[in-house]
């Protein structure tokens, strides 16, 4: 049996994850500078957000519920396929099976592929810190990342850092930029997004600012 099929598909996938937060979201994570006494709400300039991977509980109104129902990925698609025989219909798969066998429409495919790895699985007891730099023009190879004052590597290799649950001092520094400091709290299975704002400095100041 010979079959050729051409397949054309368009998928619009919308992953709807509530700003979880309760889920943390977008306006201002509190920045706790290791040296500062506290964090200011006014100061909280939306630089970090923690996104529990499953958080859709954005309203926080159902405090006692045990089940959190959330809308996952919505898949919408269009497809064209061409078959050349010899397929014996109606016993063959024409015209439905072929389409069904493609990966595009299977809702289970959508749920398994479009959700983050480990979404429903065990997470090894660690939490993720997603590190982004601002401005984006900063060369991440030259940006050093320190966790609890210990050198962790350069930012280009540390876009995602997995840490054991705990409170850490995160420092990000670059040659010609002011260092960024933040106290972060990592929970298992949660994802915390940190946007490190690196403001350009004069050379002398930059040297002083490095940890």
């Amino acid at each position: 049996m010979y079959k050729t099929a051409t397949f054309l598909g368009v998928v619009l996938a919308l992953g709807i994850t509530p700003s979880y937060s309760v889920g943390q979201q977008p306006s201002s994570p509190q920045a706790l500078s290791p040296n500062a006494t506290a964090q200011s709400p006014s100061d909280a300039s939306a630089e970090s957000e923690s996104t529990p991977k499953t958080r859709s509980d954005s309203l926080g109104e159902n405090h006692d519920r045990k089940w959190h129902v959330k809308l996952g990925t919505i898949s919408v698609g269009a497809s064209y396929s061409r078959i050349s025989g010899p397929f014996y219909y109606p016993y063959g798969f024409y015209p439905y099976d072929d389409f069904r066998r493609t990966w595009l429409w299977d809702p289970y495919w959508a749920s398994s592929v479009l959700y983050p790895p480990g979404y429903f699985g065990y997470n090894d007891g660690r939490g993720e810190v997603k590190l982004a730099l601002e401005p984006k023009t900063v060369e991440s190879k030259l940006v050093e990342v320190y966790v609890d004052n210990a050198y962790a590597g350069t930012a280009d290799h540390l876009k995602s850092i997995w840490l054991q649950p705990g409170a850490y001092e995160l420092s990000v520094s670059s040659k010609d930029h002011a260092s960024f400091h933040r106290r972060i709290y990592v929970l298992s299975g949660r994802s915390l997004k940190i946007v490190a704002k690196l403001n350009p400095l004069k050379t002398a100041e930059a040297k002083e600012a490095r940890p």
Partner: protein
Amino acid sequence: MTKRKWLAVGFACVASFAFAAPKGTVARSTALKYPSHAEQDGVAVGAVLLTSHEAGTNFVSDLSRCCLVVELALYPQKGQSIDVSLNDFSLRVIGTDNVAKAASAKVIAATLQKKATSSRDVVVSPSVGIGYESGTVYDPTTGQARRASGVYTQSGVGVGVGYPGDQGGSTDADRKVMEVELEEKGLPEGPAAAAVAGYLYFPLSRKKNARHALEYMLNGSKVVLPLAQ
């Protein structure tokens, strides 16, 4: 105890002070900068009730599951000192008998852990599709080939059920982290001669259209601050 042991203990004490985590938040310039404010006996009070969104932004701990969060600042007069205690604060749902005292970070963290352990996620993923297919097929009875084509549609719903506690925050280590976070961001207790600010956590559920008032016992008299979100 040997001299060396005394030195070790002394060093531990100094280190604990030197590396003590910051507490509270930075107070705004004046109490007037807070949506709700009042003054009594020379002490200015400013407060704001955080929305779910703000609580989610400012905390890694999932506070909207268990409580309401109030950011509060106290401004004692120059030369005056006040004793700050969580026992002096309570939150009332206006028009009801619902009132709760400020809870400690330890209690809130334990509550969050319990809720995280018992809850699980159900994710619903709908999908729809439309397609057109054409090709050559052979009739099994006559053996004749012929062209055939058709439009088809498909829809489906995928349902995923997570494990209990898969949202994080359910382990003992998580509880400790949450406790640290809430403690460090909470209103510092003890004597204060200058402005202090921090968060208060009240074990009340958020209800739509409910209005709240913060009650603060200051020198034996009650200061009531209606809160606006």
